[in-house]
């Protein structure tokens, strides 16, 4: 039996790119690939996050675990993460997880000595590695806005201290993935949608009056259609605003115009929206995800002709070998 090659060459087109935001099109592939990419971005791209906290003094109102938990959730700049070792398979420190290859040390010392409440924020965390620091959310382009400035400049609040209260701790940040704990997830949101294909049945549309057209357009909660001011024809202004809610189709049916509109999801093109927590740049997140996806596939491929693989994958193993 001659094996047919299903190999395809997906294409990516970037639409919008910011540090923490990326919108791109992914074409010529299928849902499994798109979803795999999404899942890897959320759960398997490694970042660095605080994993161990040794509290020396804590006389704040929050208890130790609460503070440790809050520290863990602070996003740290993790460009280094891909090259770092997981502390569980770090041979430099024997799994102790405290060596420079697999961990970054932080220190926090804060004491309130005035009557003013002291906000302890992520800015008070001192890193042993200048490449791994709490993410700075202040927007350099927004310097002139004084309010915005002070709000974001202070970083993420960890705890508030009153006079006499003190917090002193040492924290160890390690590499990890979102699957283990959400704090290691670099993605705030990753989502994709199928690109819609919208065909208006112009003949049927012409049978509608202007009011009917307007009410039909209104039926969609998102602005997908509009009316051309000149020709008074219904035009698609933003197909991607369509949420597959079928409202317009239902409306058309309610108006007795079945088949007024035909909307199909393109099976092979996706529009991705990626928002990063700031730990890594959104663009880097995608690249890392592809890299990890490749590694995972390699892992499968390299194990494909072993007996264990047969046990593990069963018929799938045969299939993978091209059977």
């Amino acid at each position: 039996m001659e094996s047919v090659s299903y190999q395809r060459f997906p294409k990516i087109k970037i639409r919008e790119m910011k540090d923490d935001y990326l919108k791109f099109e992914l074409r010529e592939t299928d849902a499994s690939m798109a979803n795999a990419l999404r899942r890897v971005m959320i759960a398997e791209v490694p970042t660095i996050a605080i994993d161990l906290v040794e509290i020396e003094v804590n006389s704040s109102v929050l208890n130790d675990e609460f503070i440790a938990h809050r520290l863990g959730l602070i996003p740290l700049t993790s460009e280094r993460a891909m090259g770092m070792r997981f502390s569980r398979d770090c041979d430099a420190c024997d799994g102790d997880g405290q060596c420079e290859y697999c961990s970054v040390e932080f220190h926090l010392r804060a004491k309130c000595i005035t009557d003013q409440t002291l906000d302890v924020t992520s800015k008070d965390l001192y890193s042993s590695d200048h490449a791994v620091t709490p993410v700075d959310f202040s927007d350099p382009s927004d310097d002139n806005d004084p309010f915005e400035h002070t709000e974001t400049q202070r970083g993420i609040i960890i705890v508030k201290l009153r006079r006499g209260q003190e917090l002193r701790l040492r924290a160890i940040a390690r590499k990890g993935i979102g699957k283990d704990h959400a704090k290691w997830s670099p993605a705030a949101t990753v989502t994709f949608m199928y690109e819609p294909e919208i065909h208006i049945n112009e003949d049927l549309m012409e049978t509608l009056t202007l009011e009917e057209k307007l009410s039909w357009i209104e039926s969609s909660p998102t602005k997908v259609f509009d009316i051309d001011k000149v020709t008074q024809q219904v035009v698609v202004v933003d197909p991607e605003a369509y949420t597959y809610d079928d409202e317009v189709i239902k409306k058309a049916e309610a108006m007795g115009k079945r088949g007024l509109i035909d909307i199909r999801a393109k099976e092979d093109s996706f529009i991705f929206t990626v928002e990063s927590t700031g730990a890594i740049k959104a663009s880097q997140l995608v690249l890392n995800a592809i890299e990890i996806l490749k590694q995972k596939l390699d892992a499968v491929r390299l194990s494909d002709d072993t007996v264990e693989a047969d046990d593990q994958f069963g018929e799938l193993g045969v299939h993978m070998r091209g059977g």
Partner: protein
Amino acid sequence: MAKKGGEFKELEELVRHHIDSFDYMVDRGLEIMLDNIKPVRIYDPHTDTSLSLYLSNPRINAPIKDVRSRTNRKRLLPFECRQAKVSYTGKFEADVCFQYDGRPAIREKYNFGQFPIMLKSKLCYLRSADPQQLVSLKEEASEVGGYFILNGIERVFRCLIMPKQNYPMSMTRGSYRERREGHTDKAVVIRCVREYQSSLTDHSSVTVRLYYLRNGSARVGFWVRGREYLLPVGIVLKALVETTDREIYENLTSYYDEKYEKLKGAVGSQLLGERAKIILDEVRAASLFTQDDCLQHIGEHFQPVVDELENKTPYTVAHAVLKDYMFVHLPNFHDKFSLMIFMLQKLFSFVDQTSAPDNPDSLQNQDILLPGHLMTIYLKEKLEEWLRKAKSLVQDELTKNNTFNFLAVGDVRKVMDKNSPVTISTAVESMLRSGRLATQTGLDLQQRAGYTVQAERLNYLRFLSFFRAVHRGASFAGGRTTSVRKLLPESWGFLCPVHTPDGEPCGLLNHMTCFCRVTSYFDSQGVVKDFFDIRKSILGVLTSLGMIASLPKLVQAGPPKALSVLLDGRVIGSLPSSEIEKVVAHLRRLKVSTTSAIPDDMEVGYVPLSIGGAYPGLYISTYPSRFIRPVRNISIPCEERQDIELIGPFEQVFMEIKCPDGGNGGRSNAFPATHEELHPTNMLSVVANLTPWSDHNQSPRNMYQCQMAKQTMAFSLQSLRFRADQKIYHLQTPQTPIVRTGAYMKYSIDEHPTGTNAIVAVLAYTGYDMEDAMILNKSSVDRGMFHGQIYQTETIDLSDEGSRSDRSHRRFRRSNTDRSSHSLIDSDGLPYVGQIINPNEAYCSIYNDITNTSKPKYRKGSEPAIVDYVAVDTKSKKHLQKVNIRFRHPRNPIIGDKFSSRHGQKGVCSQLWPDIDMPFSGVTGMRPDLIINPHAFPSRMTIAMLLESLAAKGGSLNGNFVDATPFASTVKAPNAGEAKSEPESLVDELGKMLKSKGFNHHGVEVLYSGVYGTELTCEIFIGPVYYQRLRHMVSDKFQVRSTGPVDQITRQPIKGRKRGGGIRFGEMERDSMLAHGAAYLLHDRLHTCSDYHIADVCSICGSILTTHYQPQRRIVRDIGGLPPVKAPKKVVCHACQTSKGIETVAMPYVFRYLAAELAAMNIKMTLHLNDGA
């Protein structure tokens, strides 16, 4: 939230009845009570002088630290009491007056011990503190008080329902028939609350019953010292006032008039004359003709019963009996006479079925028992007891001791002090601590126990509910009848129909509605009311309105011509029935006007004429401890503006009150509504008012929510650090609900929020959401959703434990020799704060000076705990004696924890599902925090939960809170300008909000499978819903064992989770195993894993008890390093003196035990052994 003073007024209002009643007790109640304790008289025959002892001038002081030292008078603050596990008490002092025959009284100050003080009462330091000061006093900013602190535990008085005071009620009781021969089951009962001159009362009550006899006569029954005495009514009537047979006859027959027979409102019948004759004949038959004859008769009868009057003339005794036990609310004998006539009329009308019986279970005929009142009467009894005891002590001394100087106050006092006066306050404290009354007389109360409960601070709603709860009485809890539990329409607006527990106390434990108040001794300005003046002015108003005042010898006409007017149980006259409606309307006007002397909480109980209905009359009540609630009086012209009238449950029944929700309520034009509800939600309690859109839910769901709100693990306390409660549940990151009712802000629930806004998707996704299970998003939980802790405090008091001798030699110190626990325990013998302590590790160490040993204390349980706080008692002199160690148990959500929305939709977490596998929205990328199954909705019909989801989605998109007050649509101000179009439905309103933000009108969204990335075949309803985490958590409940501790006697596994026991595999479980034919499993459970035992049985004699293992003396030598050959076991039967025929048999150990037990009864059990078939 920064709140200025008075921000928590609404909360304070909720507990006011507790505080007011306590304040009154301290202000006036005690004094009145003391003044009316009868002096005890001691007569000394040697000196021929008598001494009378009485009490006066009571004072209760504010709580002070260390009463003994006079120099160090520091304030004792409530938080210190909680932490030190002591009581919040102040010194109770009073003067005992010693008066020798006619000489001036000598006042001696007595200390009656430490009296419990209610928080935020006038004696409490928190009374005047504003929220800021409260915080600095280490209390909640919103502290409302109303409870006591006893041994560090907060206890609240449980308010009880009492029969309405001073109101004669006609009742049918089977037990009345059994009282004596000739009695019927019908009687008129009145609970009289004692009143002295100028309308002062000490709240003690005496119930008087008027029984109807089969022969047409009546008997008066009243209780003296725990026994009921019955007197013919004629004798009592004649004894009360100087009267003639003719007058009595006329008084009794005046209510019958042939003219009115069968007319509406006629209560008398022809039989009245006959009955009057029988009553008078009875008196004549006993040959009692004059008042003196009757008094003599009564006096002789009661002489042995009443004390302090042993040597008095029968005349005085009779007078005292009538004064102290007969209609004690009326000091005047003429008033007593008129009331007796009135009650006879009511009784006869009830017997003739011209009036209906009163329902004692209906709120119409009920009052409430408040803490101050109970404490006063309890204290009165204790003081009377103390005085009696003092008397007997002195008398004993007089007879025994010749040197005793009776005339020296000091000597008398010394004798009296043998019965320590300090016990008085101790008795009150122990009453509040245990809720049990230690009383001989019963104090005319129906129950002895259950007067206080612990005010648990599991969450704020639970705490608040303790103050609003009203219990029907413990005596009803056991009864099999359900009629007392019924929800009666009379309780509308006073008791919440939703907020009652389901199950055992259902309908017995009710909660007052949010606007329900209790009348108090204080008027709105906080001034003590003068009931004497109030009654005088009411009387004045009524006479000016045409009331014929009741006078001795004046025979009043009866219904339907005229109606009797009773003011607080006194017949004050009668009003012509033609006038009465006008009079009632006028009285209501006066009630609401601020200028009149008529109090605003006066109850105008006008019972109109009817055919066979309630007995007509005008019953006016002014006394405290009645329920009241505000309604709007719409018959008053609006320009007067003061139209909020306070009404009581008695008058409410006969009033026409319209509710905005009910429209006209089927009211006929003849009876137009005179009053209007302020808001339809006034019928709900505080907790029930917090359920959003509860009007859209099936009613039982709202009841479940009331239960679950009180079981929620929430943000229970802000002053957590200063608390030493046994157990505190704490939610780490609570949120304020997006969808909330008006009550939420009104009662500042934001100070103690109870849940989290979770994104809830309603879909059947993995199968793990079947049967009310719910799937939590693991990442959401990772990020802190529903995280929480349990705080648990261990109090170690060295002076409490161990024998008395080595108490003083024990202190906290760690052992210097044993260094194993040094990582856990500091040099002071106490744990390090923040230290994790695993089960069976030491957390503190107590050192004994004499034995030179230190004994560590180990943690029990199966999970690690973290030391949260160590509080030490710095008061003691040398070294510390008392320590509170607070542990923290992390309680983050795991499989098996219970959650619930605010709509009675509870569920158990079945999986922590990975975020990537959760369905996601293609547009927003949102993944739900929580998935519930759509099957939770159709049968439960909790539409409000769907509305909440919609509204919260819209609210969060717009960045505002959504008001979800139930019945809100009915009270929307009708816009005059707006056209009368069909009002928009709630769903449309909410849908619009969503649509404007680009979301689906119905709240559904297209979701994609998280696993496959494909579109789910239908649209999913998703949105934020406020979820509560309930306190039932697996970590506190799981019970598992393979082997473990066993019972000593039976060798079967013990029970009890705490002790590592097993779960009973009972009969029904056994049956199901048998039914399945699972014999092996059955054997495993009931035998192998239980008391499996191999016994040696002697097959010759068949006994299992006579066999005995004989140790072998033969020494087995080691052969070449091989393990020694095990010597064969030798078992001998003592009975048969041989080891032949010994067999081993597997059996349950209890079987052997049975054989031993039987042997003890001289029964021999033999086993016949054979192998195989």
